[in-house]
């Protein structure tokens, strides 16, 4: 696989928990080729995983035939990921460990918290009737 800047990649995932690992395995290789000395690769992998999990579970309601589309664009400035699902979006909820919510709500809250803390920028939006989460990471020097 030849990887050089600028670089773009697209993945289509079934909405099944565990499918995000297919993307992560490929993304880890790409990150290693683009920025082998980067200390942020794990941050990128975890944040993208959480965005995918949110899309599977809360956007596409774990209906396997509904796809999650992931677009990555890399330039000298950094990495930009957009994760699209078929849902209507969400109101961001930040969980704390003292909440007595159900396990499902806790997992959702942690995922958003993780994305926001690991990414340099985390935004939501809509595009052609699809909801997306956008994650940006600056590239290390």
């Amino acid at each position: 696989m030849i990887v050089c800047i600028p670089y773009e990649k697209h993945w289509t995932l079934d909405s099944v928990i565990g499918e995000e690992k297919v993307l992560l395995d490929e993304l880890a290789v790409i990150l290693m080729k683009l920025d082998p000395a980067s200390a942020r690769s794990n941050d990128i992998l975890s944040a993208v995983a959480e965005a995918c999990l949110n899309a599977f579970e809360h956007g596409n309601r774990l209906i396997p035939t509904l796809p999650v589309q992931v677009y990555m664009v890399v330039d000298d400035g950094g990495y930009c990921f957009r994760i699209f699902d078929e849902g209507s979006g969400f109101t961001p909820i930040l969980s704390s460990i003292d909440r007595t919510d159900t396990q499902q709500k806790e997992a959702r809250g942690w995922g958003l918290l993780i994305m926001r803390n690991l990414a340099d920028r985390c935004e939501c939006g809509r595009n052609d009737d699809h909801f997306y989460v956008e994650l940006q990471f600056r590239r290390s020097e």
Partner: protein
Amino acid sequence: MEETFAANVRETGQTVIIDMSGDLSKSAHEPLLGLFNWETKKEDTCCIILNFSQINYINSLGIALLIRLTRKTERAGYQTFAYGISPHYHKLFLMVGLAEHMMIYPDEYSIMQRIETLNSL
């Protein structure tokens, strides 16, 4: 692809050690929750040690599971320790407050030393 989660229990002295492997995600919930009686303190057992050294992947679903577990162990009166956690996942544990509910050490030996010290006080 997702690596199957597995866990087994080792008992030594007053300690129960949970050795885990694979991916700590949604599929780990049933095997881990059903592995051990987390809610009732076992006689002559003071501490639970979670061994993460063979865990390759943790996501928010796995973190939610760990939060449930540490709540149960706290209510039961156990002290919970953990080792084998990578710096990246240690960072995530700190982020969600999980590190306040389990004492994280570099390895099993250092935890055992700590438990021995606590018991001698």
